[in-house]
Each structure stands twice: as structure tokens, then as C-alpha cells.
């Protein structure tokens, strides 16, 4: 038995106190007059019988023991550890958690090997657990409790990143060098990919005394190929996806499937052309590989891959290209499934058309048509056309001023157009069809009362993007808007841009499902005033169309797992959509994000929507092992470890005391003895 703080044992002299009290206070002095003592048995009259004497001595013994145990607890007892003579080890387990470890049984086998290594450690050895990716970091800092790294190891799984060994080894080596130990060892749990050591500076050594033990190299995969992210380009016939498939093993036949998240597209109508042979291949239907949301693959192709071949496949995609969508290319399963899917996002590069209906009957001239034709060549460039009789193109802006555009088939087309995310600029026509259509969307057009002077438009919402764009040109753009006839909207029913009066909006924005409508309570010709010939007329139309185009815009970003992607603008909602990323729940983010799972992500800000295609790093797919010897030997320093004066006994004593906290048992025993003392003391006369 040893003592961490033996000076506290002096407290054991306190046992003299109960002894002294015991000797001084022999009998109770409190007198009690009681007249019927004659009925007490002679043997019971005195408390000085054998039982009482025994109890008194027992109580005295308990009191002395309590004090002695408390003194012992403060002195922190511990048993001498025989392992104190054994050299202490400091071990860092560095785990390669790149996605190449998902191949076959690599992860399970290497983890079991690591567990055995931790099991070889003796008491007093320190062990820590470090992950290589996305950047070297301690999961468990070096500790003498070997169960914690084991528990953490059991809960780990390989990620979707690539990893390099050197930064992790240096970080672990520096940490081990700072620990007081006789032996410092890094246990490297890795599949020894050639890639793991790429870029390593073998001329710079680890701290002296730090050794590296690496896990056994796993067997090579029997069947491994990877698909790279498709490249989307436009052709005369539409859109073309260029898909690259790399074979890392021998000859094999693989199936490549292409999915698109557009339910409007019928499957099986794409054509493909292999670059190594210009033959057109019909796309067979494969119902067994249907990812969400496309129920069927757009294209399925069988590939006969030669050993180590890189095959490029070009696939023409059917369907409209005027709106954003994402694609997923998928190979059938092999030894490493992590790189068998790749993702891409298509974003149209140009704006859609502006759909302008006919001028209202009675208009003296088509001011809006002339102004829009003039603005068509300004950026963003657009084409001006009349609304088609059938379905309106989704990526378009409709400018409507005729009451006929709000009735019959035209109204149905307008509703479908807005339901697809289209946008519209509406001028008041004063007709019943327009009022009815607006009433359906919870907005009422009320005519302004007739008066001699004209109605000015004022009280502009300067924070609105459209008003801000107008005012940035010239503030005078917001002046001179006067009308002899107008219609007002309740300010609480719309997002007002300008007002006739306090509660009456002159220009308001309405959300109709995903679509956006700018409603103006005045007509765009000279029947109600000279506004169409003022300098603000054309800029307003141009900015309004630009604003409505921008509201539909979807920004597409591509990236890799572990890569930090900037998120410009205000905070928004980030969530996964497809692939392993689909499990990423919605969170509010701003600034930047580092996705750790591949797939399609969506980032939604106030009026903007961005799609992110995140793929695994292609270089990690090559599972080829390092063949030129053991690379870590090049990092080990040949210099001897510096002679460090390790206060072994003191440290070992502290650790031994912490491992078996006997002081706690001493306190517990003292507490029990106090209870026994209280119980017995009440039965004795002192």
C-alpha cells in the first residue's frame, strides 16, 4: 500500500480526540428524577453491564476508525503497480477513412486488426485515435483508458472522401513526441493505396523516437470501375451528356444507367454514341435500378471494358433544356460501390422568351410592345413573342394587358405557366375576366374614384429589388407616375412596390404557387396619362422583365466531397436531394459548406435556388497499392529519441491511484461506520 499524499496521515492522530472524550466523560451527568425506580431490575439499573461496556468500546472503536479512514482517504492510498518497471508506450491509431476502404471487407478486416493492436497495450499505456479525412483530427485524444478508442473505433465507418497519410502521421508524431513515454508508436490503419502517399515529403522526418506500424495490405479488388461526373453540352439537337468510365481491373462487362429528375421526360428515348464506335445503341429498359425521383433510367448501356480502359460515352438527352435539372450516372455494383454513381446539374445559359399579349382594345398605340422590342437586345437578351396557343415555355416572362388573356384557354395556360414556376407582369385592363382571375388568387382590383386631378404613384418600397434597380439608375425614374384612371389592390394582400394611398397598392407582387406575378394598377397606354411616353416607361419594363427572369434562375454548382463550397448571399436552407446526400436533413447555413456525402444538394435563399452536384474524388477510385517497399519507413527518423527525464514514479503513482480510487472506498466505509456509530451511540449511556 502506497500513499499519494502521506502527509495527510498525520490526521490519524485525531483518533486521540474520541479516546480523550471517552476517558473524561465516564457517566452521563444529566439527572432525571423518577419515583418508581424500585421496579427496575437490579441488574438493569446500571448501564455498566457487559453489553453496555461492549457497546461503548465498539462505539469508541468506530469513531477512531472513522477518523483513521478519513485521514487515509485524504492521503489517497494506492497499491504499488508492478508494471511501473515496464516501459510506457504512447500509441496513436491513425485511421484512413477514405472511401476506398468501402471496398469489399477492407474496413472490417483493418478495424479488427486495429482492435487487436489496442488489445496488446498494457495498463498505463496511452492510446489515441485519429482520422485522416477530411483533415487529420483526434477522435479520442491519447488516454490511458483503452476502452474509449475501442468504443470509438466500433462506431466508425469509412467516409466518401480521399485521404493522405502524411499530414495525419506528422500530427500524430508531434503529439506523441510531446507525451512522456519510453516508446512512441503510430499504428497506421490504411489500405496502402498509392494515392495515400502521393505528395509526401519523405525528406522531412517524423520526430525522433516515433515509429510506424502499418496494417497488412489488403488483397486487390477483382472488379472495380468508376464513373466520372458527366459533362453536359448543348448540340444542335439539344443536350448531350459525356460520361467517362474508368476500368481499374481486368476485362469486364458493366451496365451504365442514366437518370434525370424531370418527370416530363419519357424514358428510353435518348440515343447514345460510343466514341470508340459510332454505332447507335437502343436503350434497353432496366426496371431494377430505379433511383428516386425518376422511376426509370433515361438510358441504359452495356459496356465491354478492356483492362485498365477509360471509355467515354456520349448520350443525347431528350426533352427541354430551358430549365435546370440534375442527372445521375450509375454503374452496376462492383467491389467499390462508392464511385459507381456520379452527378451533374444542368443550368440553361440563356434567358427564355418574353410572351406579350395583344394590346388592349382602344389603345392608341402598343407602347409596351415597342418598349420591349427595344429592350430585347439589352442584357439579359430575350426574344419577344406572342403567347403560344398551347403550353407556354416554363422559362419565360409573360407581359399581359388584355382582358382576353385571363379567360378561357388563355387563363388555363397562364395558370399552368405559373404552376411551372413562370412569371408574369400584369397591367390593369379594367375588364371582368382579369378581375375574376385576380379574385381567384385573393387579390381584388378596385377602380380609383374619378377626380379632376390625376392620381400619383408614390411611397415606393425602396427595399424591393426591382425598385432598388430602378432607383439606382436615376431617382427621377420614380417620379412623374401620374394617371387619370387606375385600380388599387389591398396593400395587405400583395407585397406592395408602390402605393396610390396608404392602404391602396398601385404595384404589387403576388406569389401564385412557385410562380411570381407583378400586378400594376394602371394601363400601359396614353388613355390614362402620359406615363408611356415618360423616361421611366422603358426602364420599368426592362427592369421588371429582368427581375422576373432572375426570380426563376437556378444556379448550378459542382464540387467534390470534402471540398468547401462558398454560399454567397444571405443565410439559406441547405438539404440533400439525391444519392447518399438525400439523408442530409435541412439546416440553415451561410458563408460556406463542406459536403461530406456525394449527391445532389439544394440551397434555397429568399428568392434564389441553387443546385449542387457533389461527387467523390475520382483519384480515390484507383485502389492500386504502393508497390515500392514500405513508404512510412522513409518518414521515420534515424536519430535516437532524446533523453527525457520522465518523472516515472510520480506519474505512475498518480495514474495508479486514479485507476483504482481507493480513497472513494475509504470515504464510503467511513460513512457506513458513521451510520453504525450513530445507531450504536443511541443505545449506550455515552
Amino acid at each position, binding site marked *: 500500500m502506497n500513499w499519494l499524499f502521506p502527509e495527510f496521515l498525520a490526521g490519524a492522530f485525531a483518533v486521540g480526540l474520541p479516546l480523550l472524550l471517552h476517558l473524561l466523560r465516564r457517566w452521563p*451527568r444529566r439527572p432525571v*428524577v423518577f*419515583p418508581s*425506580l424500585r*421496579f*427496575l431490575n437490579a441488574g438493569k439499573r446500571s448501564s*455498566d453491564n457487559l453489553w453496555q461496556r461492549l457497546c461503548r468500546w465498539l462505539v469508541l472503536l468506530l469513531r477512531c476508525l472513522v477518523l483513521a479512514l478519513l485521514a487515509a482517504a485524504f492521503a489517497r492510498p494506492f497499491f504499488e503497480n508492478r508494471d511501473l518497471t515496464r516501459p510506457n508506450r504512447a500509441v496513436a491509431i491513425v485511421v484512413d477513412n477514405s472511401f476506398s476502404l468501402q471496398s469489399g471487407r477492407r474496413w472490417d478486416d483493418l478495424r479488427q486488426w486495429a482492435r487487436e493492436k489496442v488489445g496488446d497495450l498494457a495498463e498505463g499505456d496511452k492510446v489515441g485515435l485519429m482520422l485522416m479525412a477530411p483533415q487529420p483530427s483526434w477522435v479520442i485524444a491519447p488516454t490511458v483508458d483503452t476502452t474509449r478508442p475501442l468504443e470509438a473505433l466500433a462506431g466508425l465507418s469509412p467516409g466518401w472522401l480521399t485521404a493522405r497519410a502524411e499530414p495525419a502521421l506528422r500530427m500524430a508524431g508531434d503529439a506523441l513526441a510531446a507525451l512522456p513515454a519510453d516508446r512512441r508508436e503510430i499504428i497506421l490503419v490504411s489500405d496502402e493505396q498509392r494515392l495515400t502517399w502521393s505528395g509526401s515529403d519523405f525528406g522531412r522526418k517524423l520526430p525522433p523516437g516515433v515509429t510506424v506500424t502499418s496494417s497488412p495490405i489488403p488483397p486487390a479488388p477483382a472488379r472495380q470501375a468508376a464513373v466520372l461526373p458527366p459533362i453536359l453540352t448543348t448540340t444542335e439537337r439539344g443536350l448531350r451528356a459525356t460520361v467517362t468510365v474508368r476500368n481499374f481491373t481486368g476485362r469486364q462487362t458493366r451496365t451504365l444507367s442514366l437518370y434525370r429528375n424531370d418527370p416530363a421526360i419519357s424514358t428510353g428515348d435518348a440515343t447514345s454514341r460510343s466514341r470508340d464506335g459510332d454505332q447507335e445503341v437502343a436503350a434497353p429498359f432496366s426496371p431494377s435500378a430505379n433511383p428516386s425521383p425518376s422511376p426509370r433510367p433515361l438510358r441504359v448501356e452495356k459496356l465491354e471494358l478492356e483492362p485498365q480502359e477509360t471509355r467515354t460515352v456520349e448520350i443525347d438527352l431528350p426533352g427541354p433544356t430551358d430549365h435546370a435539372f440534375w442527372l445521375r450516372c450509375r454503374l452496376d455494383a462492383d467491389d467499390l460501390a462508392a464511385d459507381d454513381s456520379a452527378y451533374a446539374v444542368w443550368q440553361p445559359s440563356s434567358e427564355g422568351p418574353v410572351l406579350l399579349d395583344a394590346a388592349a382594345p382602344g389603345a392608341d398605340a402598343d407602347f409596351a410592345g415597342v418598349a420591349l422590342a427595344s429592350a430585347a437586345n439589352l442584357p439579359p437578351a430575350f426574344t419577344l413573342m406572342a403567347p403560344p396557343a398551347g403550353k407556354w415555355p416554363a422559362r419565360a416572362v409573360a407581359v399581359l394587358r388584355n382582358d382576353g388573356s385571363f379567360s378561357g384557354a388563355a387563363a388555363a395556360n397562364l395558370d399552368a405557366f405559373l404552376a411551372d414556376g413562370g412569371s408574369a407582369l400584369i397591367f390593369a385592363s379594367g375588364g371582368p375576366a382579369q378581375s375574376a382571375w385576380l379574385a381567384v388568387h385573393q387579390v381584388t382590383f378596385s377602380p380609383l374614384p374619378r377626380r379632376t386631378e390625376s392620381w400619383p404613384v408614390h411611397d415606393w418600397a425602396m427595399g424591393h429589388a426591382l425598385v432598388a434597380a430602378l432607383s439606382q439608375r436615376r431617382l427621377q425614374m420614380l417620379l412623374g407616375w401620374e394617371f387619370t384612371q387606375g385600380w388599387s389592390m389591398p396593400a395587405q394582400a400583395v407585397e406592395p412596390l408602390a402605393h396610390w394611398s396608404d392602404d391602396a397598392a398601385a404595384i404589387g407582387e403576388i406569389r401564385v404557387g412557385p410562380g411570381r406575378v407583378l400586378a400594376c394598377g394602371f394601363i400601359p397606354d396614353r388613355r390614362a396619362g402620359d406615363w408611356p411616353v415618360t423616361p421611366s416607361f422603358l426602364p420599368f419594363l426592362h427592369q421588371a422583365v429582368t427581375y422576373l427572369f432572375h426570380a426563376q434562375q437556378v444556379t448550378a454548382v459542382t464540387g467534390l466531397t470534402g471540398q468547401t463550397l462558398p454560399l454567397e448571399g444571405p443565410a439559406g436552407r441547405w438539404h440533400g436531394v439525391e444519392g447518399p446526400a438525400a439523408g442530409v436533413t435541412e439546416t440553415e447555413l451561410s458563408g460556406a459548406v463542406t459536403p461530406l456525402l456525394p449527391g445532389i444538394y439544394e440551397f434555397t435563399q429568399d428568392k434564389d435556388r441553387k443546385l449542387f452536384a457533389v461527387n467523390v474524388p475520382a483519384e480515390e477510385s484507383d485502389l492500386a497499392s504502393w508497390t515500392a517497399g514500405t513508404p512510412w519507413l522513409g518518414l521515420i527518423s534515424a536519430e535516437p529519441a532524446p533523453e527525457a527525464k520522465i518523472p516515472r514514479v510520480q506519474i505512475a503513482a498518480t495514474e495508479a491511484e486514479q485507476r483504482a480510487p481507493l480513497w472513494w472506498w475509504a470515504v464510503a466505509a467511513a460513512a457506513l461506520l458513521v451510520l453504525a456509530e450513530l445507531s450504536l451511540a443511541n443505545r449506550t*449511556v455515552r
Partner: protein
Amino acid sequence: MFAPLDMAELAALTSLPLRARCLADAVGAGRHRSRRRGASVEFADYRDYHPGDDLRRVDWRLLARTDRAHLREAHEETPMRVLLLLDVSASMNYASRPKLMTKLDYGRSALAALSLVVRRQRDAGGIGLLAEELSGYLPPSSSPGRLRSLWATLETPASSRQTPLARTLAQAADAAPRACLFVIASDFYEEADAIADVIRRLRFEGHDALALHLADPEEEDFTFSDPAQFQDPETGSEWPLDPPAAAAAYRAAFAAHRVRIHDLFLENGFAHLSLRTDVAPVDALSAYLAVRAGRS
């Protein structure tokens, strides 16, 4: 049904006559009716005339109606001689709690109330204090001033270290007239065998007796928990005592002594009543009335 009495309120009454009236009123005791019949105003029964009977008691109206002579009988009221004896030994001067009466005060109150009942019954009341010798003795008398004399004697502070109960009782028996009712208020801390002779003597001499065996609740229950130095007020001896260890034996010995005293009185045809000082002594008054009724 007696009105309940609060012992704390009773103990707070410092005037002995007041206590006595409270107790007597609680029992509702008044004049009693004798079972003996004689010449009185209260009709009891008719009986046939026998030669030699007093002609003044013949019911002449009945003779006129029935032509037969009948005597008219009425209840006769007879006085009883009651001798109240109070043990004033040091052991009686004990109360285990501040709000309790000592056994001595309790006995005084009970006997004072009894003396009031005796007075209301027009019986003859006497008194004696059982100290080292019989003291303060007043023979039974039904004179109007006797009640005040009895209360004055009861209020006389008297205590001695120890009372030889057998001897003082014998002295009372010597002094008492014939056919008295001895009402003895004591804690009877005397061996039963020692007082057996004098109890038997009372029986042989035609006396009646009512023993009021007084005890403090703590004497009966013995619930002390803390060890202490116990003192006997009569002998002055002191013992260090562990009450929980001695409690069981004490209670058994106390109960056995009480049973022996109880049996001694009952064997001689007397009444014995155990009273706790935390319960109003109305039972004592009821017992007296019962004894009184049995003797009439």
C-alpha cells in the same frame, strides 16, 4: 354521559375548590336516594299493618276505601361516613411533563371533588394525610363547615421522604369510627404483602374502601430514550441508566405490582381504581357513587 374535561385546563386551575367543583359538575353528582325505607316524604310502597306498627304511618284514606289497614312507606335517607386519605410521600410529588399535575395535586383534586360530592350527599366527610405518620386527621362529620376544613387540610403543603403506608393506614383505622368508607389516594409504592394485614383489618372492622391508585403516564409507559442519571426522590439513590435496555423489565414489574394491589383490594371486597394523571379523575367520583349506592 360526563362532559369531557381538559386536563391541561384543570391543571391550570390553581384553586383547589374550583377544581373540585369542575370535577363534581362534570360527573353531575348530587344527593342520592337510600335503598332503606322509613319515614320520609318520598313515597316508596304500601305494606300490611302489623300490630305494634306506628299508627301514625297508617294510610287512613286507604283504610276508608278498602276497610283494610296499610302502612305507607317512604325512602329513608341515611348518612355515610367517608374518610379521605391522601398519600403525601415524596414519590407523589412527581410530574413527567410541565403541563401535567403531579400525582399529589391530582390526588388532592380528586379528593377535593369527592369531598364536595360527599357534602352534596349530606354524608359525613373526614380526612387524613398519610405521611411518615398519620397527620391532619379530621373525623367524618356532616357539619356545614367540614367541607372547608377538608379542603384546607388538602391544601396544606405536606411531603415527607417516604411513607410507611401500612403503618399510617393502621393509624387511620385506629382513629376512624365504625363503618367508614376509606378513600385512599396513593401511588401504593409499598409491597402488597406489607399492606395486606391492614386491608384485611378494614374488612373485619366493617369498613369499606376505595383505592385510587395514581400513576404518572411516564411511570406507566416508561418511554425514556436517552441514558441519564436516574434519581429516586424518596431514597435519594442515583443510578446511571440505559432506559431502552431496562424498559421491558420495568413495565412488567410495574404492571405486576399494580395487579397485586388490585387483587388485594378485590379479595377483600373493596374497589380499586387505576388513574393516570393525564386523564380526568371523574372515574374516581363515579366509583365513589357506585360504592355509595351499594352501601345504601
